[in-house]
């Protein structure tokens, strides 16, 4: 049960980090200079082409090592980065690439007139982002982001490979101790499934709420 809690913590954290990266990345890709745009293109392509497991290994070991080396180089003491923080950072980095693409598509789907109108009112870019772009893109982005959240919950299982104590690793240890492999793995599967179905329900509600006032998908066709 502690494993499930850890899994959920990481999934939530990674999704939030991913969303932040996604918003910044989408803005950079759409409005940034040529260098920023190219760098972001490289980032999203590389992260989406390399398996998550390899990325997790690379960032989990290399990332923590690199931070420690930098810290010792500039004269600080080594810090012990907890698995939780490292896991959130690594998965968030992976999620960021995917959510960048989702957000970019969603921002492009906003009718151009709305943004132009906001500019004509003299809104500052920050206000424009907060009041117009983010709310207006929400209905377009929620299906893609919902998928990302489900992927994030399932990707937490990969952290078991680097030895972080979450649901899958907890299951493996419990199964190894009690020798009741099948029962424990089935139970863990049911837990994951419950999380997925429950969040499906919530996300369906959220999408309905974000879409309020817009023509329904069936009528629009």
């Amino acid at each position, binding site marked *: 049960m502690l494993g499930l809690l850890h899994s959920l913590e990481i999934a939530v954290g990674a999704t939030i980090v991913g969303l932040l990266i996604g918003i910044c990345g989408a803005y950079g890709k759409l409005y940034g200079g040529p260098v920023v745009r190219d760098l972001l293109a490289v980032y999203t392509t*590389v992260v989406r082409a390399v398996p*998550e497991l390899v990325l997790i*290994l690379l960032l989990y*070991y290399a990332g923590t090592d690199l931070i420690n080396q930098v810290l010792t180089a500039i004269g600080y003491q080594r810090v012990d980065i907890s698995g939780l923080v490292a896991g959130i950072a690594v998965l968030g980095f992976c999620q960021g690439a995917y959510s960048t693409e989702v957000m970019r598509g969603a921002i492009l789907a906003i009718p151009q007139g709305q943004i132009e109108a906001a500019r004509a009112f003299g809104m500052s870019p920050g206000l424009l982002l907060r009041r117009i772009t983010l709310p207006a893109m929400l209905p377009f982005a929620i299906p893609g982001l919902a998928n990302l959240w489900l992927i994030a919950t399932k990707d937490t*299982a990969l952290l*078991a490979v680097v030895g972080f104590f979450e649901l899958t690793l907890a299951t493996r240890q419990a*199964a190894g101790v009690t020798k009741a*492999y*099948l029962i424990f793995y089935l139970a*863990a599967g049911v837990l994951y499934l419950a999380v997925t179905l429950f969040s499906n329900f919530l996300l369906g509600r959220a999408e309905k709420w974000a879409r309020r006032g817009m023509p329904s998908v069936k009528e629009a066709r």
Partner: protein
Amino acid sequence: MAGEAAIINTAARASLWLQPHRIVLILIALGLVLSAAFFMRWDWLPQYWEMGLMGIWRALWILAVTCALGFLIAVPVGLAQAAGSIWVAAPAKVFCTIIRGTPLLLQLWLLYYGLGSLFPQYPWIRDSWMWPYLRQAWPYGVLALTLSFAGYEGEVMRGAFAGVPKGQLEAARAFGMSRWKILRRIWLPQAFYRALPTLTGETVLQLKSTPLVATISVIDIFAVAGKVRQDTYLTYEPLLLLALIYMAITGILVLALSRIEARIPVKVG
């Protein structure tokens, strides 16, 4: 004349693509790659060269087999959900939900450690011809990856089957085709064309999930990289090379699949 125009056109496109900042970025990237090649240790490469090739071959083999088998399962699963009565549609739906709702790593471990630990308890399984296969790890890996591909792809095929225009099927029926013939000649090809772009994406996703079989002791390229790391105590080099290999495979795969996609007539329905 046409050839000249084409050459000018590609040259113009190249100059558009090769803007100054891009050249600088490419130079920086080249510098990074070169410094990685010179300042890191690569002397272990010749020793593990053959093993790595074996690993790549095995990963590609698993990818091909699981995609083919998974697609074969996905067609009936999708058809059952799109057209079947509730008695067929409900199990297919439950199958898709379960596969898509649990992590692949868990499914893999469930099959390998869970199911695999049950088999030796029954003497008649140990005596049967299947036992030499059941003792190894790769059948479980292939089974788990096939089922997962079938689960995700079944959902895609459901949408594709449902997306074929009704008029096509009605016309086929009006021609007096049998139901099997309609499926073979009209419904399945059109659904396949519709699903093809998604299939490309799913195949790449499947490639990215093949390293998971390394956790149940199948020696693919990922496991080879792990072995190099254990033997030489190097952290970064094998992983960086591994990432590069996967990127190359992904690139080739996407290119090949987009070739196939381009051959298919775009206007369906």
